[in-house]
């Protein structure tokens, strides 16, 4: 790999000390020239080069509105231009293609004021009709855009009105909560370019795609953004992305210097790499992701009635939660790169996390006391329910996930200490999903929740009792319990107002109910771990996707790295 230019060779020829001056003056000039030389070197060293990293799977689409997988999401992030972008570091929404916007009080309408002088990667000018085209396509039912689902809050059509070449207004049939933040996902497409989705507004554009092998992105020559010194971004010439599902191979290539970054690193690899090259690994702290377990409470599930009675008891669920040593899960399974989880919101989500709640303290004694209240009792080290049935259940989880398999082994031991026998059943993912979502043929399950949305509105499909993903008892016609009815009410209340304070109050209460009732027993929040080569400058790995290259337009490669390739 050879970068187009490093700037080193050009700057070497630029400076020469003037003749005929005194030694002191010449020395002073020499120092100034040397300083200027170094500054120039560093300035030029920041441009050009090809960043190299891997995606774990092939992108399913290059159409930004059809993105539904991580790899396509990465490509869209690097190539797509959006009206507003959530800063992955500050978590604040920042203007991009829109200079400003205004949301109506009822949360149904948003008006964008667009940036001037912006062009697509093929030179086509960007204007309000491109936004209109994109939104119309996004909301077109025949397109089946997963991105558009977030905007479909009510029956009716979306009206897009071009007010001027730089102004566009979008009206939705019902209020869309956190409306402006949803546009972080909407990459604007050109209404006029013959290149269709290949004409992009982001810092890079797809230059070459070898199916199953690699994707080469080149810098967009028309990209609108400039740095504080007026230099056009991105600094990099290109990004070469290899498709590499094997994490071992990815790690080996990173160690050999063939890759510049690993976006998501497993704990084992993190520690192994960190032990030899601590400067290359980054632990950005707790991520938004969580692992949790839950009990099957579905009325029609093929499980014995006495077991269903256990699983429906809040005391039983809380006792199980108390018996689990979360500190050990974080320390042993994740080598300390995880935190005991509190609830549905990770502490990493600074605004929405209910800071009054603390992780459930590990206390087998308290767990046994709680179980006694429901008639459970220990006999020869075996926990029996009030009818004398020994407490035994199985936990299903996805096979092949080492952390989850290890966690389940620790939980098996923890629950054994209060007399509960746990059978562990790792299943292949499709079978697991079939059992959990269709046949409800399981007793307890352990899975992870990958949260990409900071706003709790993105969790409506979990907390509403009628939702398909209401894990413990999905698709209820009416809430089965009073607390589920209260959650329904609170989630709908937070979704129907744009008053942030009221929304926060409502969702704080939801978190409290979830904590008290433990329908999901949250276990840990894994830390965001990544690796960045020392040849990359400007990287600031964060917790939000894409962790390492969220500021790809400002990443640079050192001269040596560029020359090496």
């Amino acid at each position: 790999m050879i970068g187009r230019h490093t700037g080193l060779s050009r700057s070497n020829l630029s400076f020469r000390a003037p003749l005929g001056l005194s030694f002191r003056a010449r020395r002073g000039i020499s120092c100034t020239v040397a300083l200027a030389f170094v500054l120039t070197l560093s300035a030029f060293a920041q441009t050009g080069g090809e960043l190299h990293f891997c995606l774990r799977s092939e992108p399913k689409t290059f159409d930004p509105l059809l993105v539904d997988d991580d790899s396509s999401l990465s490509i869209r992030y690097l190539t797509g231009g959006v009206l507003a972008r959530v800063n992955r570091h500050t978590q604040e929404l920042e203007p991009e293609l829109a200079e400003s916007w205004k949301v109506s009080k009822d949360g149904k309408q948003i008006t964008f004021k667009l940036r001037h002088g912006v062009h697509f990667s093929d030179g086509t000018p960007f204007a309000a009709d491109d936004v209109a085209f994109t939104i119309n396509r996004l909301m077109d039912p025949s397109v089946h855009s997963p991105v558009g689902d977030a905007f479909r809050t009510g029956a009716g059509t979306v009206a897009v009105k071009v007010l001027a070449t730089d102004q566009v207004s979008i009206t939705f049939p019902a209020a869309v909560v956190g409306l402006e933040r949803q546009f972080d996902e909407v990459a604007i497409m050109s209404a006029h370019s013959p290149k269709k989705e290949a004409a992009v507004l982001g810092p890079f554009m797809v230059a070459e795609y070898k199916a199953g092998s690699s994707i080469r992105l080149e810098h967009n020559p028309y990209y609108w953004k400039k740095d504080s010194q007026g230099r056009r971004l991105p600094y990099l010439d290109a990004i070469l992305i290899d498709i590499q599902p094997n994490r071992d191979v990815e790690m080996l290539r990173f160690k050999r210097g063939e890759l510049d970054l690993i976006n998501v690193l497993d704990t084992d690899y993190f520690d192994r790499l960190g032990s030899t090259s601590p400067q290359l690994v980054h632990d950005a702290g707790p991520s938004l992701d969580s692992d949790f377990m839950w009990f099957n409470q579905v009325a029609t599930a093929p499980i014995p009635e006495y077991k269903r009675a256990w699983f429906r008891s809040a005391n039983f669920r809380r006792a199980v939660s108390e018996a689990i040593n979360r500190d050990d899960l974080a320390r042993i399974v994740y080598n300390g790169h995880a935190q005991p989880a509190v609830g549905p919101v990770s502490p990493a989500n600074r605004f929405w996390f209910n800071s009054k709640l603390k992780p459930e303290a590990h206390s087998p004694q308290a767990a046994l006391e709680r179980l006694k209240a429901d008639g459970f009792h220990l006999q020869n080290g075996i926990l029996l329910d009030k009818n004398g049935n020994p407490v035994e259940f199985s936990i299903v989880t996805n096979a092949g996930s080492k952390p989850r398999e290890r966690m389940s082994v620790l939980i098996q031991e923890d629950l054994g200490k209060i007399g509960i026998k746990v059978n562990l059943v790792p299943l292949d993912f499709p079978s697991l999903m079939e059992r959990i979502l269709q046949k409800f043929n399981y007793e307890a399950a352990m899975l992870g929740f990958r949260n990409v949305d900071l706003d709790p509105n993105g969790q409506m499909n979990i907390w509403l009792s009628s939702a398909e993903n209401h894990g413990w008892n999905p698709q209820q016609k009416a809430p089965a319990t009073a607390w589920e009815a209260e959650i329904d009410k609170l989630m709908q209340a937070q979704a129907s107002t744009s008053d942030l304070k009221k929304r926060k109050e409502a969702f704080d209460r939801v978190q409290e109910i979830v904590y008290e009732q433990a329908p999901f027993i949250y276990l840990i929040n894994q830390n965001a771990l990544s690796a960045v080569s020392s040849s990359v400058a400007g990287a600031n790995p964060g917790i939000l996707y894409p962790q390492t290259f969220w500021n790809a337009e400002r990443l640079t490669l050192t001269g040596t790295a560029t020359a090496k390739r």
Partner: protein
Amino acid sequence: MKAARLLACVIVVAVCALSLGARWLAPAGYAHQFREAADAPPSHQHLLGTDEVGRDRFARVLYGTRISLLLAPAAALVSTALAALVGGLAGYLGGIWLKLARAFTDLFLSLPWLFLLITVRALLPLNVSPLTSVLITFLILGLLGWAQSARVLSTSADALRNSDFVLQARASGLHGPRLFLIHVLPNLKPVLYAQFWISIPVFILSEANLGVLGLGVAEPLPSWGSLLRELEGLISFREEPWRLVPLLLLIVVMTSFQILLSNEEVTA
């Protein structure tokens, strides 16, 4: 050769004795978690260190050896018996029976086993004890692993059927099962032995792979297969060479069996 046989015999006996004495040699047991010493290197307390959740690796190797050395040969016995029945008999009978058996074997080998195994797992109850799970796993392996061996045996039996001594036996009036049991089957013994011994490491590794599908030995019970899964993602053997012990044990034991087998074949 004699020295090699002796050494192989000593190794097999020693490994069997060690695994049978696991209760005394590793009193902590295979399931106890030393959580303060998870993933620890070898020490006086833990001769082979501990695994990722703090279980004594030495104990797990001993108990795992016991399970794998008992059940993998049992599964191999089942599959070889089935192979002898299908392949050996078809080869002996010849004609349409041989064609049918080969077609059936080919069909069996072409089935998408991965999906079949997933279906089998989906049909099993969730609440089964680890011991039951290990029995089910090896039984499935035994019942499904006969086809390759059957193909080899059918060819060998077919060759025997047309051999001079079988023709002579026929000419002497020997027919049917009696001919098969007295003349054909004893001559198939070397092939049967070979197929039996070859199947053992294959089943041990298959059990390790089945773990990924959730069909392997259930936690916390160890097996060579589950111990070999620990090697997944191990980038440098130099860093933690003790983790290679289960693999080395598998190689050494299987090699020893092969050396002993070659002797058996000679005498057979």
